[in-house]
């Protein structure tokens, strides 16, 4: 066990865990966050996605000790039910979910790519989503929501 300080969604937390613990387990079990979820534990599906330094990270394979001082943003860090982030709002408007288990990967990856490159083409957005799996196959609605958000930030 080791005391580790984490910056998550604008708040500082101190946790006492084995430093090898995957960041995901700390977010879920120590901080009680529901956004990032365990899908595969092998960085193959994206359900555990968080954003660090503007990049998407698979929290299921990142040891908590490797996070350092970097701010971690999870799905709930974007917006709240009362005030959703515009990309969350686009997903709400398009009804772009079925079970919704995969949403951290979908929403955060799309946000990260459009933050870096607001004029990213559909193809570039899709390429960025290569590691993301949705088994309900809500693909069409999700891409429509992402496009809607992209158009809004470009306007």
């Amino acid at each position, binding site marked *: 066990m080791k005391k580790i300080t984490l910056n998550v969604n604008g708040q500082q937390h101190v946790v006492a865990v084995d430093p090898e613990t*995957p960041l995901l387990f700390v977010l*879920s079990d120590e901080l009680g966050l529901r956004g990032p979820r365990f*899908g*595969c534990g*092998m960085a193959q599906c994206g359900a555990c996605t968080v954003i660090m330094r503007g990049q998407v990270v698979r929290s299921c394979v990142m040891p908590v000790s490797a996070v350092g001082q970097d701010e971690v943003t999870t799905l709930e860090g974007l917006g709240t039910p009362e005030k959703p982030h515009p990309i969350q709002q686009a997903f709400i408007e398009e009804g772009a*979910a*079925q*079970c919704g288990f995969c949403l951290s990967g979908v929403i955060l990856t799309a946000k990260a790519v459009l933050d870096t490159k607001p004029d990213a083409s559909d193809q570039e957005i899709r390429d960025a989503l290569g590691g993301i799996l949705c088994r*309900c*196959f809500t693909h069409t609605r999700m891409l429509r929501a992402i496009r809607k958000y992209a158009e809004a930030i470009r306007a």
Partner: protein
Amino acid sequence: MTQSRREFLKSCGALIVSFSAGSLRVLSAQSQGQFGTHPSHIDPEKLDSWLAVGADGIITAYTGKCDFGQGIFTAQSQLVAEELCVPIDRVKLIQCDTSVCPDQGTTSGSQSTPTNFNSESLALAAATAREALLGLAAVKLGERVEQLTVADGIITSNMGRYVRYEELIGNKHFNVLLSATAKRRSSRDWTVLGKPIPSLDRTALMTGQFEFVHHVRIPGMLHGRVVRPPEMGATVVHVDEQSVRSVPGLVKVVVRKNFIGVVAETQYQAALAARKLAVQWNPGPELPSHNSFFDHLRKQPSHDVLSVDSRDIEAQLAAASHVIRAIYTYPYQMHGSVGASCAVAEVKPESATVWSATQTVYPTRSIVAKLLNMPVDTVRVIYVRGSGCYGLNGADAVSFDAAILSQAVGRPVRLQFSRQDEMMWENFGSACVVEHRAGMARDGSIVVWDREDWVASLGNRPGYDIPGNVITGMLLGYEAELPEPRSAKAPGGKFRNQSNTVPSYFAGCVAGGCGGGGTIRSERALTHTVRSPFFTGPLRSPLRIQNTFANECFIDELCAHAKADPVAFRLQHLQNSRVIGVLKAAADAASWQARPSPMANFSRAQTVSGRGIACVAYEGDNGYAALVAEVDVDLQTGTVRPKRFIIALDCGPVSNPDGLRNQTEGGILQGMSRALVEEVTWDNRRVTSVDWETYKSLHLDSEMPTVETVFVTPADRPATGAGETAITVTPAAIGNAIFDATSARLRDLPFTPERVKAALLADRGARA
């Protein structure tokens, strides 16, 4: 004139209105001790089992049909709001908790809508409640029921007097039985049901607030992992507990027969212990070769069932102008939920609670009781949504496992599978072989069709008493449901087509009359169910998708032989008006050009395009769909790219058009993934498709076609299921479109580039 109470009671049939002092709140209180006897302590005949009006005017409804992403939570809330004439936000729906909800068996098989949205169960309860409230209001206001109107939970007389629901019965029991004569509100008057109400879980999902079963946390909770055998049939020789002594936080290694699990203070420690635990196993039996599996399947002893047999097949085939044969194969496929299954159990000496994503809370309660050796009425199972399931993923097994671990350590345990635990041991969708023989007349019509299929089967949903149907039960020494070898009896009773074994074009004549959808009277459908080396179970459109793939591609082969248009040829052999309805609607919406397949002039381009159609009467009478697929095929790489799908769907009145579109789009695209890439693989010892590298699924970077959905809603028909209809026709429509584009017939799923190239080569060889 005031209707007397007696007259009101008379006019409402058996309705007995009385008041009791009991507060409705206790209905949901665990301490009430409502646990009774199997199958359900909650009497579905009583209105109070389904519905309660709070003092605050909130309508609480209890359902045994749960939402795992298909939208039934929202649709059921709409139903209750509609029948009670209140806004949807005044409805609170409690789903699938064995302490408060009626036992509605399994949420599956596209049965939630037919069961809860027509004239029984939840729909009848809501209609009964509205009529009971009107009756109470009539008494209170001294008016006749006919003089009352209801809106927004307020009942108003034509004299302008009014009373609110909660003033009539707030927090009190109705104490009435469901009234078989209670009238549903006409779909013409609907203001909430039938409308595209945004799904109620949306905002919570998109903002990361939604509680999945993975998020259930109980004070004092520990974390578990299971240690599964390396292969099917392996048995424990020795568990070396010393091997995990160094793992910090380890609480216990739990061994029961061949079941092994570890419990630790944290998830990480549990995962570490599971990985480090040294177990010596006896090997299981060698597996049949994957490459020749379908030949193997056909040679095994089997349980045989004739769905239909006109007993003139051989004679008719001998007399036919032309006989066409073909063999279709369908691989094992996975539910492959994106989230590894998870459950939380709190087992105490006197009671047990399991938070579970099972689709079967009551059966799960019975199995948990059996495995823990506890009375069934001391076990409570509370449904909490998991990752999308599509049938029988690991949700049941993980619930049993968590309960066993919790009992062993005497503390609450949260158990989450590893990806491999999930994918190696779930109940796969069955592998099948279908062999068709059909005889055609000189005029190109079908005169005889014989169909024989072999289905691999082992286990199923555990139901109330067969734990061995999933991996946990087998490890604990319980037997799975097995196909007992026996020869087929003559088909008797009423014609049934539950698994869509029988093509829509058969007349379906059995002792009880002709119930098929078509005109072919020389017909036989024989099913051989064979023991599977792996667990199998219901995967979205179980056997219906396998059978429809084979049936709807083969009719296309017959059609091509007759040089007929695929829509016209189907219509020629159909008589089911609803299948005809969707077929015509899909063809219209797709601007279908009538001509035979394949295309007359093949382009020399590298990429060719084609269109294909397929249709089904799901389960014979539980929803109707016709799908047109437009695909591109790259002749050099063998890659198939669906570009556009147009589906016509008839499921009676639609509860939520937006929800149904979402389900339909998802069904088609999931069907496309299953048609193009999905297949369980194995070597001679074990399943080898155990993660997302080895089991393919179309990720979000895949090029996705457009999907256009047309609803066909004939008047005055009951609501049918709709969640599985679209996926059922997808592989066949794609296969037929590939044939149209290339003249190569793909008979083995999935349509991998290698298979497409091989079929192209074979086709060129045949035509050279």
